C-alpha cells in the first residue's frame, strides 16, 4: 500500500470525477454530496499519509518511481539517453501543504454548495484542480511538477470564467495569461535544466548543483547560468505568488471568482509559488539565492507595504482581501530572504497560515455576498446584530490576519521578521511598518462590516447555518491551534527545513 499510497492520494479525486460524470446533471443534491465526498477521500488519505510519515527524517519519503519517457539525444560521439520518471514523494514541507490542500478543498467544497447551477461540471473541474494541487506538492520530478502545475490552470480558468461575477471572463483571461506566462518561463527553465543536467529529479538536481559531476555535465554550470535560472524561477513563481508588479491578475481573480474558488486560489494556489521558490530556488541554488537575498528582501517589503497601503483605500471588501494577500505574500518573501532558520520557517508558516486565514476570510465574504448580493463596504454595517456568529468569526479572522498572537498569523510574522532582523535589520525595520498598516486596513474592513449601526433593510439577515459553521469553525480552530502551539507544525517541517538550510552552510 505504501508503495503507491501517494499515487492513490493524488489521483483519488478522480474517483468522484468518474462518478460525477455518470450522474444526471439535474440531481443537484447528489451532485453536491458526491463532490464533497470526492474531497473527503483525499483528506482521509492525506491523514493516512501523515501517519505513515516519519517526521524525524529529512529524506523524501513514500517514494514512487516509474520510468516514463526517455529521450535519446544524438551527441557528437554517442547517443545520450535522458529519462524522465514518474516520481512522487513527500518531505515535511510538501506533506504539510498536501494536508492543507486537502483540508481547504473539503471546506471549499462545503462552501461550494451555494454555487448557482451546473454543479456537475463545477465539481468535476473542482476535483480536477485538486488533483493538480496535490500532484504539485507530491511530485519529485520537475516534469511531473509542471504537468500538475498546469493542471491547476485549466480548471481554474473554467471555474472563474463560468461561475464568477460580472467581469468573470476578463478575470479568467488575465488569470490565464499571467499564469501562462509564468508557467511558460518555468517550462523553459525546466528544459534548460534538463538539457544541462540530463535529469529532472529534485534530489539529483540539487545534488548536481551542489557537487557537480554526474549527468551530462562535465562540470557544474557557471555562476551566470545559475543566477539567471534562479531569476527566471523567481519571475515564474513571482507571478504565482504574486510579487508586485505582477499582481494585477490576482486582484481580478479575487474579485470576480466565486468565493469557494477564491478560497482554493488564495489558500493553496498562491502557495505553489512559495513552495516552488523554496524547493527549487533555495533547494537548487542556495549560493545564488544568497546573492539575491537582499533584492528578495526588498521585494518582500515592497510587496508588504504596497499591498497594505492600497488595501487601506479599497471600497470593495474582496479587493481589501486581495491586496491583503499581496501584502501577506510579502512576508513569505521576507522570511525567505532572511536565509536562516527563523526566516524560512516563518515563510513556511506564513504559507500555511495565510492559506487558512484567507480561506476563512473568503469563505465569510462568500457568506456575506450570498446574503446581501454585494461586497462593497459601504453596503455593510452592524452585522453583529443579526449575524453574531459570522461577525465574530470574521473579526477573529481579521485579527488573525493582522497577526494577533494566539493565532497562526502572528507566528509566521514573528518568525519572518525575526529572521530578517538578523540578516538585514534595516530592511526589516522598514517592513515592520506593514504590521501597523495591516492592522489599519484589516480593522477598517472588518469593523465596517460588523460594527456600526445596522441599516433597516439588513434586518432579516440569517446567521451562519450548520453547513456554514463547519468550514468557519474548522478553519478558525486550525488557525488558533497553530497559533497556540506552533511547534505542532514546526516539528513536521523541521527536518525538511534543516536540509534546505544545510545548502546555505548551516
Amino acid at each position, binding site marked *: 500500500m505504501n508503495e503507491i499510497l501517494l499515487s492513490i492520494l493524488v489521483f483519488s479525486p478522480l474517483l468522484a470525477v468518474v462518478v460525477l460524470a455518470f450522474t444526471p446533471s439535474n440531481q443537484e443534491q447528489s451532485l453536491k454530496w458526491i463532490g464533497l465526498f470526492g474531497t473527503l477521500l483525499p483528506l482521509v488519505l492525506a491523514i493516512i499519509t501523515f501517519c505513515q510519515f516519519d517526521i524525524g527524517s529529512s529524506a523524501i519519503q513514500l517514494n514512487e518511481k516509474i520510468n516514463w519517457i526517455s529521450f535519446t539525444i*544524438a551527441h557528437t560521439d554517442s547517443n545520450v539517453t535522458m529519462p524522465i520518471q514518474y516520481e512522487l514523494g513527500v518531505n515535511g514541507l510538501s506533506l504539510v501543504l498536501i494536508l492543507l490542500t486537502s483540508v481547504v478543498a473539503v471546506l471549499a467544497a462545503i462552501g461550494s454548495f451555494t454555487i448557482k447551477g451546473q454543479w456537475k461540471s463545477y465539481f468535476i473541474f473542482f476535483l480536477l484542480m485538486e488533483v493538480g494541487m496535490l500532484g504539485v506538492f507530491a511530485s519529485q520530478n520537475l516534469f511531473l511538477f509542471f504537468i500538475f502545475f*498546469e493542471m491547476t490552470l485549466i480548471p481554474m480558468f473554467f471555474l472563474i470564467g463560468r461561475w464568477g461575477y460580472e467581469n468573470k471572463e476578463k478575470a479568467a483571461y488575465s488569470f490565464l495569461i499571467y499564469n501562462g506566462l509564468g508557467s511558460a518561463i518555468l517550462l*523553459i527553465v525546466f528544459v534548460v535544466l534538463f538539457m544541462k543536467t540530463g535529469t529532472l529529479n529534485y534530489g539529483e538536481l540539487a545534488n548536481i548543483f551542489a557537487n557537480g559531476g554526474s549527468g551530462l555535465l562535465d562540470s557544474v554550470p557557471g555562476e551566470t547560468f545559475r543566477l539567471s535560472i534562479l531569476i527566471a524561477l523567481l519571475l515564474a513563481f513571482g507571478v504565482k505568488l504574486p510579487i508586485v508588479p505582477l499582481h494585477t491578475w490576482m486582484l481580478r481573480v479575487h474579485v470576480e471568482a466565486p468565493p469557494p474558488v477564491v478560497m482554493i486560489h488564495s489558500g493553496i494556489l498562491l502557495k505553489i509559488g512559495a513552495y516552488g521558490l523554496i524547493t527549487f530556488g533555495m533547494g537548487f541554488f542556495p549560493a545564488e539565492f544568497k546573492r539575491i537575498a537582499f533584492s528578495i528582501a526588498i521585494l518582500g517589503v515592497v510587496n508588504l507595504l504596497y499591498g497594505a497601503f492600497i488595501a487601506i483605500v479599497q471600497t470593495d471588501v474582496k479587493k481589501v482581501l486581495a491586496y491583503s494577500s499581496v501584502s501577506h505574500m510579502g512576508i513569505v518573501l521576507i522570511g525567505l530572504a532572511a536565509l536562516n532558520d527563523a526566516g524560512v520557517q516563518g515563510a513556511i508558516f506564513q504559507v500555511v497560515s495565510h492559506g487558512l486565514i484567507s480561506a476563512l476570510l473568503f469563505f465569510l465574504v462568500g457568506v456575506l455576498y450570498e446574503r446581501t448580493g454585494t461586497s462593497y463596504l459601504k453596503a455593510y454595517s452592524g452585522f453583529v446584530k443579526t449575524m453574531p456568529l459570522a461577525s465574530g468569526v470574521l473579526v477573529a479572522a481579521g485579527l488573525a490576519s493582522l497577526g494577533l498572537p494566539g493565532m497562526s498569523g502572528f507566528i509566521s510574522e514573528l518568525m519572518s521578521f525575526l529572521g530578517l532582523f538578523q540578516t538585514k535589520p534595516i530592511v526589516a525595520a522598514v517592513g515592520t511598518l506593514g504590521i501597523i498598516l495591516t492592522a489599519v486596513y484589516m480593522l477598517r474592513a472588518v469593523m465596517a462590516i460588523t460594527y456600526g449601526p445596522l441599516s433597516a433593510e439588513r434586518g432579516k439577515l440569517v446567521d451562519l447555518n450548520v453547513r456554514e459553521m463547519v468550514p468557519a469553525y474548522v478553519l478558525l480552530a486550525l488557525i488558533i491551534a497553530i497559533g497556540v502551539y506552533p511547534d505542532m507544525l514546526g516539528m513536521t517541517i523541521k527536518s525538511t527545513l534543516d536540509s534546505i538550510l544545510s545548502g546555505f552552510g548551516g
Partner: protein
Amino acid sequence: MELETIRSYDWGIMAPELIILGAATILSLADLLMPKKASRRYLAIFAFLGVACALVALFMQLDNGVISILADTYRFDSFSKAFKLLFLIGTGLILLLAFDDRKGERDEYRGEFYYLLLTALLGAMMMASSADMITLFVGLELLSLSSYIMAGLRKRDRQSNEAAFKYVVNGGISTAITLFGMSYIFGLTGETNLYAIQNALGDPTILQNQFLLVFAFLITFVGLSFKIATVPFQMWAPDVYHGAPIPVTAFLSVVSKAAGFVIMIRFLLVTFIAAPGVAEKPLLQEVQPYLAILAGASMIIGNLIALRQRNIKRMFAYSSIAQAGYILVPFAVISGLMFEAVWFYLLAYLFMNIGVFAIIQLVTAKSGSTDISSFAGLYRRSPWIAVCMTIFVLSLAGFPATAGFIGKFGIFMSALSTGAHYWLAGIMIATTVVSYFYYFNVIGQMFFRSEEEAGKVSIPGGVLTVTAVCVISTLVLGILPHTALEFFYNQFDLSQFFTPTK
C-alpha cells in the same frame, strides 16, 4: 542499364505507393463508370481501404533496412517509413472526415476529390521516400497540383475558386523560386542524387562559389517554405484554408505541411550537411540564425494575426502558421533531437489539428457559418463535442497531458540543446502565451457564452471515428508519450539518414 538490373531491384518495397496508385486509378475509373446520379460517398470507404492497405503494407516492411532503387530515385529508409506513416494516418482520417462532409453532397465531384486526395498522398509519399532531386520535385508538384485542384473543387463556391487561384499563383511562384535555387545546387554539383550532391558539396573546391551556394540554399528554403506556410511564404495560407472545403483545409494544414517539412529536411539537410559556409563555420550553422529568425517570425505573425480572426477556419489557418514556426525550430537549430521532435510534433499536430477540423466541420455544418460564434454555448448543446474540442485546443496551445505539450517539450529541448537558442525559445514561449488568447477564446465561446442556436449537434459515424481516434491519440500521446517515442526509437534508426546506400 540492363533490364536485369532494373528487375533486380526489390520493387515490392514500393508496395504502399503502388497500393495508393492502384486505388487512385480504380477510383478514377469507378467514378467515370458510375451512374451520374449515384452517390459517390462510398468511394471514400474504398479510398480509405486503400490507405489502410498501404498502411498495413508499410507496417509489414517496418523491419527492412535501407533499400534503394535506381540510384536513390526511390529510397526506403527509416526517415521515409516514419513520415509515410504520418501521411497515411493523416490521409486516412481526412478521408473519414470527407465521408461525412455534408456540404459536399451537392457536388458531383466527390469521386475526383478522393482520387486527388490519393494522388496528393502519393506525391507526399514520394517526397518522403526519394533521395533524388528530380523525383522529389515531381513528387512535390504532384502533391501541389492535386492540392490546387482540391482547393478549387467546390467550383460554384466563390471562396473556393478564389482560394484555389491564390493557391495556384503562389504555388507557381514558389515552384519557380524553388527550382531556381535547385538549379544552382544542381549547377554547382552537376548531380541530382542527394548523396552525390552531399559528396560534391563537401569538396573544398566548392569554396570558390560559397556565396552562390548559400544563396541557392536560401532561395530553395524560401521556395519550400511555401509548402509549410512559414514566413516569408505564409500569406497565402489563411486565404486558402479559409476558402477551401474543410477536409481539404485539414489536408493542407496537416499532410501537405508535413510533406513540406519532409522535403525540407530530406533535401536541404542531406545535401548541405557537409557544405562549407562563407566563414569558417559550416553552411548550416551560418544560416542557422536566419532560419531561426524565420521560425520566430512565423510564430509571431501567426499567433498575432490569429488574435483578430472571427472566422474559425481562418483562425486555425494562422494557428497553423504559428505551429509550423514551432516545428521549424528543431530544423533551424539542427539539434540532435530534430527527427524525433519534428516527427512527434507532426504526429501530435496531425491528431489535434484533424480533430479540430473534424469538429469545425461538424459545428459549422450545423450553423452554416464559419464564424466563431457558431461555437457559442456548444457545451450546453453537445458537451462531449465541446470537451473534445477543448482537448484539441489545449493540445494546440501546449498544455500538459496532451500530445501538444510533449511535442512542445521536445521542441524546447531541441531549441536549447545545441547552442542554447534562448531567444528563440523565448519567442516561442511569448507567442505561445499570446496564442492562449485565441485558443481560449474558442473555449470561452463553447463554455461561457449562451448558445445562439438550439439543438444538439449530431455526430455522423465518420467524424465520430475521427474525433474519437484523435482525442484518444492526443491524450495517449500526452500521457504516455513513450509509446510513440519508443516506437520511434526502436523502429527508426536515423543514423542511416545521412549516409548513402552502400
